[in-house]
């Protein structure tokens, strides 16, 4: 049995094939990035790709950005091991896009230039609001980035058979260097093309595997599910909810909290919001979201088949015994179906996923620092666009170094909470402020500061004192928290995900700050914002080259 041998050894497949396919991907994308970098002179070029992408291109790039390793390897693995509960994740990730489509994307495109802070500070006091928005952007991007970098170590360990910590650190450093190169040279244009290539590879690869799996069961979903049931210790329980989150009332509430953070977090993720500025108009921003919804939705339907397919064809026990544990479900399924070559292709896609997502996060964080903090807070808008881009490039370099060091430090740690934290901060700090400033005339500076710092602080504190950081043990008494020393336990917040508390707190503080402040809203600026956001009058145009 090939699969059994694969699960028993520390690696799967042929490292040489995997490395060759990785190298081919990196070379192709580097060529694209260098080609795309020829017109990268102004801030609009560097941050927003000259606003010249079509809605379809941007939609594909958004799905490339959004379908991170967590949603490809993570969801397929969660379904393979926990059955239906894994499926619930993907629904939250998808429905969230309706918030972006209906309430945020077009209005944001019409009012801002490069960053989320452009919209939030539009009619409020510039410097404090921009600073708060940049702090929140950097926090979300940093946690998201760290999770991806740490994930790269584990993934490469599985795919290349690199076991030693030192060798894995080298791999993390290589990921960081390539990513910084994409961002420095390619700017938003290069980064977007990397995401487009990656999204296409990922979706085509998943589609091929889906058809292959269904073909093995005569295109009958029910038979495939039977295969998963037969292979699982939990039997028919894999077909309904509860395996992962159904244990007691705390885990059930945790699930509701996660559902809330997922559906409200997406429309507040800075690296997603920034993508809306890469298209020439609000109509194209709308088309981007429509493309993204279709691609992401169809992809999650594939992961449903792949997850149950991995359970049926590979089996949960073998998946959990493999080096990457839950995350190895999709690669092991690829190996089972198509041997070394398909495994190599799927692994390269997963690797590409990390590179592309990390590059997108880096450009967002560097834009936020250079545009919001440096150009508008420190230099008060007196810096020219070339100077701003220079600072953005330096920031990207610094972020690259932080990401490499942080990734090496976090390698092997339980980092899933970092992504949950990023979503919770986005939903608690960013979304209330965005919605209030777009739709509530009275909203003012104090309201914005309270909702952003309050939502951010609340989410951070609850996470620090939650079981994901300390005090969680599994049935065998082994620690499953970030702090693995079971004698250290300072948690008092019962839930893993803070969303159910921190999101209402963010909305409440935004309201409270507003009504307790004597600051009068600027009617002329609100009029400008309303008219611009709805009619597109005065919106930023595409760059003509």
């Amino acid at each position, binding site marked *: 049995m090939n699969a059994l041998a694969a699960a028993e050894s520390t690696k799967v497949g042929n490292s040489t094939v995997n490395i060759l396919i990785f190298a081919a991907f990196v070379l192709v994308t580097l060529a694209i990035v260098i080609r795309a970098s020829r017109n990268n002179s102004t801030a609009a070029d560097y941050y927003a790709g000259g606003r010249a992408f079509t809605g379809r291109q941007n939609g594909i790039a958004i799905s490339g950005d959004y379908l991170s390793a967590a949603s490809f390897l993570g969801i397929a693995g969660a379904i393979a091991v926990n059955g239906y509960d894994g499926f619930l994740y993907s629904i939250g990730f998808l*429905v969230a896009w309706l918030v972006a489509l209906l309430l945020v994307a077009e209005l944001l495109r019409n009012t801002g230039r490069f960053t989320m802070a452009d919209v939030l500070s539009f009619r409020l006091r510039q410097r404090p609001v921009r600073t708060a928005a940049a702090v929140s952007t950097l926090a979300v991007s940093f946690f998201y980035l760290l999770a991806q970098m740490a994930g790269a170590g584990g993934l490469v360990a599985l795919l290349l058979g690199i076991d030693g910590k030192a060798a894995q650190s080298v791999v993390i450093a290589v990921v960081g260097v390539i990513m910084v190169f994409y961002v420095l040279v390619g700017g938003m244009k290069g980064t977007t093309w990397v995401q487009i290539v990656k999204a296409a590879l990922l979706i085509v690869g998943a589609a091929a595997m889906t058809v292959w799996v269904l073909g093995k069961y005569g295109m009958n979903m029910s038979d495939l599910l039977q295969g998963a049931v037969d292979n699982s210790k939990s039997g028919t329980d894999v077909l*309904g909810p509860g395996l992962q989150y159904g244990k007691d009332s705390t885990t059930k509430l945790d699930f509701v909290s996660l559902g809330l953070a997922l559906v409200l977090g997406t429309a507040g993720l800075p690296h997603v919001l920034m993508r809306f500025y890469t298209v020439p108009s609000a109509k194209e921003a709308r088309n981007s979201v429509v493309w993204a919804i279709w691609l992401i939705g169809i992809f999650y339907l594939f992961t449903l088949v792949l997850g149950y397919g991995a359970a049926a064809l590979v089996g949960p026990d073998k998946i959990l015994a493999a080096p990457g544990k839950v995350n190895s479900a999709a690669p092991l399924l690829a190996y089972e179906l198509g041997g070394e070559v398909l495994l190599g292709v799927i692994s390269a896609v997963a690797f590409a996923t990390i590179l592309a997502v990390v590059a997108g996060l880096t450009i967002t964080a560097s834009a936020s620092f250079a545009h919001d903090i440096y150009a508008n807070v420190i230099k008060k808008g007196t810096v020219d*666009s070339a100077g701003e881009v220079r600072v953005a490039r330096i920031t990207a370099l610094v972020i690259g170094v932080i990401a490499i060091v942080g990734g090496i430090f976090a390698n092997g740690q339980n980092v899933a909470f970092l992504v949950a934290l990023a979503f919770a901060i986005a939903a608690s700090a960013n979304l209330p402020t965005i919605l209030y400033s777009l739709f509530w005339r009275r909203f003012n500076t104090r309201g914005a500061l309270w909702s952003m710092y309050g939502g951010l602080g609340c989410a951070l504190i609850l996470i620090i004192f939650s079981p994901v950081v300390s005090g969680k043990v599994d049935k065998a008494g082994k620690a499953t928290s970030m702090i693995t020393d079971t004698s250290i336990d300072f948690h008092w917040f019962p839930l893993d995900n803070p969303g159910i508390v921190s999101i209402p707190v963010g909305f409440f503080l935004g309201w409270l700050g507003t009504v307790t402040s004597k600051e009068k809203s600027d009617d002329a600026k609100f009029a400008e914002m*309303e008219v611009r956001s709805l009619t597109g009058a005065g919106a930023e145009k595409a760059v003509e080259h």
Partner: protein
Amino acid sequence: MSSGSELPADAAQGYLRVEQSPEFKDLRSRFRRFVFPMTAVFLIWYFAYVLLGAYAHDFMAHKLFGNITVGLVLGLLQFVSTFAITMIYVRWANRVFDPAAEKLAASVGLTEHEGGEQR
């Protein structure tokens, strides 16, 4: 800077005048009358599903035919409703909202107010 700096007084007056006009108020209420109820619908439907997933295990695990459970069908219906709302919104925006917004922007001469990148 398009955002942040003070507008020339006549431009600010222009935006205020447009915002106060019945045509703009009509456009805004049309937009809100569409997106707010739609948002309420999908959020209620989504949370109903999440709560069923968290608290109604037996109902969700009930098999309808073969191994296809109620939970699977409801989950797939979330995909269907998301795709459907997307299509309904785009159709409405392209046919109703965009023409009205463009007409308003043109009629008040705001289309080329500032905009464009300074190069």
